[in-house]
């Protein structure tokens, strides 16, 4: 069993990875059918980092994600039905249809918010960590970002700040080798992104992000360090994105059959369980989750559009 703060069972971990995978595949299908509009960025192939890291967190710990946020929200405990509804712009969505895919917010489960701006969530996670430490709380915050964010100025400013103030924050870089459309080598000469963290004296690790057990272990160590007052950590998870930058990307389609890929984190996790006592039944889990996802999607699409009056609500608390 992969140990975490919430002590998930292997079955639960596998279920969660499947829920994410099936959710995103369904979202892809709905997008192709025109049921979802806007920009849809999928993280199919990167499930192990979301599940590995979020499994190391307590419910009150906070997560801030970027433009590829579904996996993180689901791993932190968001309901897929309301996520589908948000993607489809329905009133029952988590943000009443005002946020959409890139701006999901489920603060009740600690998934505070996502942002559509590359690197934009980093200072937000730092701020939550500052809030926690300055008020003597024990909560840890996590920022998930891609390798593209590492080249932003905000990244540099945030690593400096996190280190200076020993903030209880864990920075998770999901390095899928692609920043938006182009390979990382077109964006930086830095080979190991975690080297940046070393410069500011932030403990770092570069790991195989498709190995759930490895991710969980590294995340537990980083979260423990943050909670114990040891300051920030930087985790570079090498992952593999099976889809293009976004759905409909005309210039890049990678991996037509992701489950065959050697890197597929789900396949790897299942293989790692083989032969173990009391092992789970992967096929049954997958089948059950797919039914669950289909139902959730249908229900979301049946939900009403938001009221027009809601258009001008919640711009500010009050004037």
């Amino acid at each position: 069993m992969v140990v975490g703060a919430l002590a998930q069972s292997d079955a639960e971990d596998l279920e969660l990875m499947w829920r994410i995978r099936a959710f995103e595949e369904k979202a892809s299908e709905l997008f192709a059918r025109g049921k979802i509009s806007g920009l849809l960025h999928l993280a199919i192939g990167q499930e192990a980092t979301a599940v590995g890291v979020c499994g190391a967190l307590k419910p009150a710990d906070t997560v801030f994600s970027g433009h590829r946020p579904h996996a993180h929200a689901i791993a932190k405990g968001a309901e897929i039905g309301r996520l589908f509804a948000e993607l489809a712009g329905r009133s029952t969505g988590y943000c009443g249809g005002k946020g959409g895919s890139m701006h999901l917010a489920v603060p009740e489960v600690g998934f505070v918010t996502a942002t559509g701006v590359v690197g934009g969530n980093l200072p937000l996670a730092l701020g939550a960590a500052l809030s926690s430490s300055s008020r003597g709380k024990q909560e840890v915050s996590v920022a998930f970002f891609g390798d593209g964010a590492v080249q932003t100025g905000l990244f540099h400013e945030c690593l400096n700040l996190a280190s200076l103030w020993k903030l209880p924050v864990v920075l998770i870089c999901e390095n899928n080798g692609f920043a938006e459309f182009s390979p990382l080598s077109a964006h930086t000469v830095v080979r190991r992104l975690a080297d940046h963290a070393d410069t500011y004296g932030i403990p770092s690790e570069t790991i195989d992000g498709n190995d759930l057990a490895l991710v969980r272990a590294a995340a537990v160590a980083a979260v423990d360090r943050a909670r114990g007052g040891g300051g920030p950590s930087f985790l570079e998870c090498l992952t593999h994105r099976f889809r293009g930058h976004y759905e409909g990307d005309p210039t890049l389609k990678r991996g037509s059959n992701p489950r065959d890929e050697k890197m597929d984190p789900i396949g790897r996790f299942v293989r790692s369980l083989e032969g173990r006592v009391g092992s789970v039944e992967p096929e049954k889990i997958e089948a059950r989750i797919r039914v669950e996802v289909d139902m959730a999607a249908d229900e979301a699409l049946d939900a009403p559009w938001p009221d027009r009056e809601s258009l001008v609500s919640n711009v500010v608390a009050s004037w």
Partner: protein
Amino acid sequence: MLYAEAVVEALRRSIEDDERVHLMGQYFLGLTPHRTMVGDLYKQYPDRVYFPPIAELGYVGAGIGAAIAGLRPIVDCATASFTFQAFAQILNEAANIHYMSGGQTSVPMVIHYNHGVRGGGAAQHSHSPQAMMWNTPGLEIVTPSHPADLIGLVQTAVASDNPTIWVDHVRLFDTEGEVPDDIEPIPFGRASIRREGSDLTVFASSWMVCRSLEAAELLAAEGISVEVVDPRTLVPLDEEAILQSVAKTGHLLVVDECHRRCGVGSEIAAIVAEHAHGDLRAPIRRLATLDVPVPFSAPMEEFVEPTVDKIIEAARSVVENR
């Protein structure tokens, strides 16, 4: 020619006509299917293209330095919202350098972005920041709405020694227009009367010109004769053309995709209120994007932006007591 093709054509001509022109960035045609055309252009001129990392502050600023050093960079910020990342360089550096140096140094660069409501872009991918840029002296702003104008305006922008903001809109990409072979550079500050009319002046720029023209066509059927004034450049602005049109029609509707408060429409309305108060036979109306962040959900999105229906309705209300 498709507008998207005109974008590529304008870039191609710029590259071919002036060896100092280099392109920085790759999302001139946004994330639309058209963007492969930009890719093809890049393959043709690999030495004239620079693919920056996701670092708008850094690479837009690098464009400024390159312009000072002798290039004529055309820098693409992709979605207008991302210009906020580079505001410090665009508004604090590029716009000020010529002035602060007392005229010693020029920044001949073009900064391109795609603005506005594009469909599902939500709050962080749907901005129209040109009103904010307009409030900052030192930037020229071009807002083409027609393929031929686009090519002519970009030629002038590239030849200009000033930093020029090239405002595009992804919804323009699929529009079509006639493009003669021998397009001359279009001087800045000359509006185009895209449709003549006698009852109402509609001022609109960029994508809103297309919607206004469509509305004007439908209004004509009701006997309302609409004149559509497309400024083509916001800075410099052809105030005379607007005032002349208002003198003729006595009615003004400003259609603007910026937010209403302190939008382009505010300035146009203020100019007319100050200088043509006596010509006005009814209050000016401003139709702009409502003052809320752009929502994601499709019906709400349509509700906040100026649509053809809303233009028609607003036009009727302005001229009702004609």
